[in-house]
């Protein structure tokens, strides 16, 4: 993974000093709250219902075991002994004191981490495929260019006060595991006819109040010109994005209003100027970064691996866990393990300090010291030998994270919701817990098959409900929590936005309503091989509406 050099260290150290000084100026009243708020948000610091919340950046979801140990230590020292993995592949602490943030940032900096631009109207933490570098289907490891973008966008003098937040996501494979078309800019790494690597640029996707699947703006940008092209994209947005209404300020509205062709034309017009400004980094710099992502030397292991095959034969529970939680690895004899942070009835994405330490220890023992965070709020050990999978599974059982439910109905995304968040209208986590418990039986989960439930506690859609096969949106109806159901969303390479089925359900009725939707699917699917989303795309919303609301 990427390792800081003296310049990265200098910038990170100077950032800690700058923010520490800003905190002092706030505490003595030189800065008002209105002045300080954008500054603290640019450092990932929110005020939530019970305390400050700090969102730590995990660039493109890659962590070392050392970093994870430090994150666990910080959870114990500065928070209440746990943390929350988010849909931006980041990590949040819920009980932070403003006056302690400078010390906390210094501890993060000691392991080459920070909270830069994890909030605010600036370029946010770049997300990428959690299987980057280990998936067999990728054109290029997306973390190389993600790191180039991270550096370019850090403290960008022109784009730190954009009309609204700005999110990048990258995938190196045609199979999109990063939901790129739901981002302000989504980048797919492609090869052109000449065999050169370049970047397809999608602009203007997003969730929130106005969900949009991003259109393709430019099918191929060469590596040597990517940053100047992105800078042109951002400059057009910074100048012309709406600033009069925060609900219309995202770039998706600008692209929609101008039309993708006109937006693309304005970017082309701006591009010569950004090229001339010298923002593109030399090939040697990309090569320097690339060297950090050279694949490790894997042992030569012939498949099938006898002990692994035997372990699966001996334990059907293990075999099932492998089926859902182990992703094929490009190196023979290895697998990428997704650790489910969705124990049945648990809080999606939460992990205690002890659990984080245990995962870091597993990474050291079995995964070359590396960990990934997924946008589905799980954690990945990317480099596990098949001979070690059984041991890893058993050790995960000791910390309560051995559930074999990845991609199944209980692998639920839920935002923090009204239990923590000051923007929320309704609670999300208890709904996830009740659904998880209701559908907890593993036989039943396998019978239902791949099904993504995503829950947001407000229209900002941090729980990605628009992209859920079943999406649940919490609303406040005269002081009471209600939940609307959308169906048919998808965040992969066939991205689609879920459709609202009808009136919402009270908290005590939402599990029953989802159960009806699932049973309707089970009744109408053509065969067990037809997944929920495939069946929905075949039949549309009507049968589901009828089962929930009766015939009209």
């Amino acid at each position: 993974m990427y390792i800081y050099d003296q310049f990265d260290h200098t910038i990170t150290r100077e950032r800690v000093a700058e923010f520490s000084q800003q905190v002092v100026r706030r505490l003595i009243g030189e800065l008002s709250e209105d002045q300080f708020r954008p500054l603290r948000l640019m450092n990932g610091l929110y005020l939530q219902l019970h305390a400050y919340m700090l969102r730590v950046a995990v660039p493109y979801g890659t962590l070392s075991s050392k970093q994870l140990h430090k994150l666990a230590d910080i959870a114990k020292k500065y928070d209440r002994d746990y943390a929350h993995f988010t849909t931006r592949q980041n990590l949040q602490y819920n009980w932070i004191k403003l006056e302690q943030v400078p010390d906390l940032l210094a501890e993060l900096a000691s392991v080459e981490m920070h909270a830069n631009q994890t909030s605010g109207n600036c370029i946010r933490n770049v997300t990428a495929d959690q299987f980057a570098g280990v998936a067999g289907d990728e054109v290029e490891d997306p973390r190389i260019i993600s790191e180039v973008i991270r550096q370019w966008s850090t403290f960008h003098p022109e784009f730190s006060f954009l009309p609204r937040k700005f999110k990048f996501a990258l995938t190196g494979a045609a199979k999109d595991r990063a939901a790129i078309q739901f981002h302000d800019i989504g980048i797919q790494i492609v090869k052109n006819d000449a065999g050169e690597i370049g970047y397809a640029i999608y602009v203007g996707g997003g969730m929130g109040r106005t969900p949009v699947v991003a259109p393709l703006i430019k099918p191929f940008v060469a590596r040597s010109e990517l940053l100047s092209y992105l800078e042109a994209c951002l400059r057009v947005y910074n100048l012309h994005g709406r600033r009069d209404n925060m609900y219309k300020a995202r770039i998706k509205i600008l692209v929609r209003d101008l039309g993708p062709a006109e937006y693309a034309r304005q970017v082309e017009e701006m591009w010569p100027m950004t090229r001339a400004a010298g923002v593109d980094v030399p090939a040697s710099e990309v090569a320097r970064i690339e060297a950090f992502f050279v694949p490790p030397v894997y042992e030569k292991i012939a498949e099938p691996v006898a002990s692994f095959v035997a372990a699966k034969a001996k334990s059907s529970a293990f075999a099932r866990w492998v089926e859902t939680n182990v992703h094929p690895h490009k190196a023979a004899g290895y697998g990428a393990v997704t650790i489910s942070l969705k124990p049945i009835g648990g809080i999606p994405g939460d992990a205690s300090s002890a659990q984080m330490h245990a995962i870091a220890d597993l990474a050291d023992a079995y995964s070359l010291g590396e960990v990934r965070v997924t946008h589905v709020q799980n954690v990945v050990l990317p480099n596990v030998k098949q001979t070690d999978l059984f041991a890893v599974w058993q050790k995960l059982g000791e910390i309560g994270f051995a559930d074999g439910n990845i991609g199944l109905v209980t692998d639920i995304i839920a935002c923090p919701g009204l239990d923590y968040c000051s923007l929320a209208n309704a609670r999300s986590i208890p709904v996830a817990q009740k659904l998880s418990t209701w559908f907890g039986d593993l036989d039943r989960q396998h019978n239902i098959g791949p099904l993504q439930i995503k829950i947001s506690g407000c229209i900002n859609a941090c729980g990605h409900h628009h992209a859920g096969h079943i999406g649940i949106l919490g609303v406040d109806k005269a002081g009471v929590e209600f939940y609307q159901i959308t169906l048919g969303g998808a965040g992969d390479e066939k991205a689609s936005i879920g459709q609202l089925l009808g009136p919402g359900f009270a908290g005590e009725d939402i599990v029953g309503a989802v159960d009806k939707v699932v049973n309707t699917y089970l009744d109408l699917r053509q065969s067990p091989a037809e997944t929920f989303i495939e069946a929905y795309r075949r039949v549309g919303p009507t049968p589901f509406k009828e089962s929930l609301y009766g015939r009209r």
Partner: protein
Amino acid sequence: MAVVDRNGPIADKWERLADDAPVPGGTSVIVSFARLKSEHNSLFSAAGGVGVEIPGDVNLDELEPFLPRLGVVVVRMANMRDGRAFSVGRLLRERYGYGNDMRAVGDFIPDQVLFLLRCGFTSFEVKDNFPIDSLKHSVAAYSVWYQRATDRAAAVAELRQNTPGGGNS
């Protein structure tokens, strides 16, 4: 009101001229863009120097013909979150080649001055109680940058090339 640069308060020769005020001969005046467009002949002949104040949504193509004769361009930020000024500054310098004083005015805070400097601004109109000590501290917050900007400060990618053994110490 006071005018500062990166080092603190500076002397300022410019006077604001209301749209209906007569042009005082020999004085350096800052006028609205509307007035510049309608009265540029008399302004350039009578005033000692001419500057203009523009909002963030100005059409710079319309301003371009006047740029070579302007002594100062004042870019107004509607509030501290109005980030258009950063792009306007870069366009004026890098696309239109404007070379004289470029000034920001509005409710920005010292922490934003560094970015404004990087985008080509040279002076700042601020309230009298603007914290000068914090300004001096803020503009010195960083010694290196990850990206090129108008100020042409070398980005780390270039510094790495010139550092023996790259940047790894």
